[in-house]
């Protein structure tokens, strides 16, 4: 398989260096998920803090790089930079004593409507801030006006048609516009998309997603990264069930196949039925110690979410 090829390449070059494996620290040692792995590939996330920067240890004795075709081992999580900023966001949130929910869904599943109903119920008692991700417009942010919440809009359009998710730098850019110290809870309403947002941590404590019953039973299997990443699945638009052929047992079976532990909350943001249970969960997040996700995204290559219980070992 391909891993063998990978190792042969690495051995051929890394060993030639003066500093053979000082940046390969920790792999296969002491990391909970790879201690007994049969083939020791670098699946754990390299820690940028401990990781001597390649540019540091190339100085002086590698003048041949311009023409040499020299391989340097990088071992950098593709989402490493995002995760570093997510950790910075998380530190700011913790310092301000505010808990953060990253709310994701496909377009039109009902995130904004759910937020309206949430603010209607919780806003006076709970001080809530919203980070609103929207590719080009302020339409969603406008819908949240007048509920007493602090709303910071992040347009993700960048000239190329817009980013498909909120990442940690974008959320960070919104923080100066929110009175963090005066808030109990921030809900990050991500861009509607079942793929990309699951990969980008923003510094949240917990991830939740809204699934609408109109989306069909198969979505957990089609978008397993998203469904596996979340702590709560809100099942919205239950008021439409009499008009649909959707098989909720099959949906739950599919959900459990990729995420055995997520809490499932059926509700209708339109009629309000079940919204109180969602609000109770948000209250738990604010008042309780439990339910916190790891800082890093699943994108770090760390199997910390979903089927991997975070409190293992």
């Amino acid at each position: 398989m391909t891993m063998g090829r990978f190792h042969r390449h690495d051995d051929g070059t890394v060993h030639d260096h003066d500093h053979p494996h000082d940046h390969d620290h920790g792999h296969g040692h002491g990391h909970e998920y790879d201690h007994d792995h049969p083939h020791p590939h670098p699946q754990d996330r390299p820690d940028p803090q401990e990781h001597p920067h390649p540019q540091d240890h190339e100085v002086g004795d590698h003048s041949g790089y311009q023409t040499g075709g020299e391989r340097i081992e990088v071992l950098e999580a593709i989402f490493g930079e995002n995760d570093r900023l997510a950790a910075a966001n998380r530190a700011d949130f913790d310092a301000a004593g505010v808990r953060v929910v990253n709310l994701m869904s496909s377009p039109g599943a009902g995130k904004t409507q759910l937020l309206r109903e949430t603010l209607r119920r919780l806003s006076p008692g709970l001080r809530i801030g919203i980070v609103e991700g929207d590719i080009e417009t302020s339409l969603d942010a406008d819908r949240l006006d007048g509920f007493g919440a602090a709303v910071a809009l992040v347009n993700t359009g960048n000239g190329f048609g817009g980013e498909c998710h909120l990442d940690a730098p974008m959320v960070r850019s919104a923080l100066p516009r929110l009175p963090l110290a005066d808030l109990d809870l921030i809900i990050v309403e991500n861009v509607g998309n079942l793929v990309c947002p699951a990969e980008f941590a923003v510094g949240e404590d917990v991830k939740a997603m809204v699934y609408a019953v109109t989306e069909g039973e198969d979505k957990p299997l089609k978008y397993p990264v998203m469904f596996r990443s979340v702590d709560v699945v809100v099942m919205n638009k239950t008021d439409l069930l009499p008009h649909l052929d959707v098989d909720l047992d099959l949906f739950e079976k599919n959900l459990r196949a990729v995420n055995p532990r997520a809490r499932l909350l059926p509700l209708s943001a339109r009629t309000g039925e079940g919204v109180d249970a969602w609000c109770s969960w948000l209250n738990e997040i604010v008042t309780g110690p439990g339910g916190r996700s790891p800082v890093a995204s699943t994108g770090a290559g760390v199997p910390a979410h979903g089927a991997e219980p975070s409190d293992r070992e």
Partner: protein
Amino acid sequence: MHELSVCTAIADAVRTHAGDRPVYEVRLCIGHLRQLVPDSLTFCWSLVADHGGLAGARLVIDEVPAEIECEACGRRTVLDHPVLLCPDCSSRLVRIIAGEECHITSIVLGDGPGTEER
């Protein structure tokens, strides 16, 4: 669109490591549970690299199949589909031991292949 974001992140990381030096090859390790399509990554990489100062840098992707270990019976299974269920005892309490990899493993600096490929 997902792969485009990912390629942008890869290019940023590669430039950090390479500085001004030319890059011949970027090698990734991508697990099958990551929902990243290698062909799509390669296509998006060509766009991002061309416009991001990494023109000509080729992308090599090592794929890692998804593998789970059952917490109940201990069986290890390589998965064809992202269904986290032990095929032996049907337990859902399984640990993912491979398939979530998502990192840059190495880069080759210069204008040609690395020494081991000559």
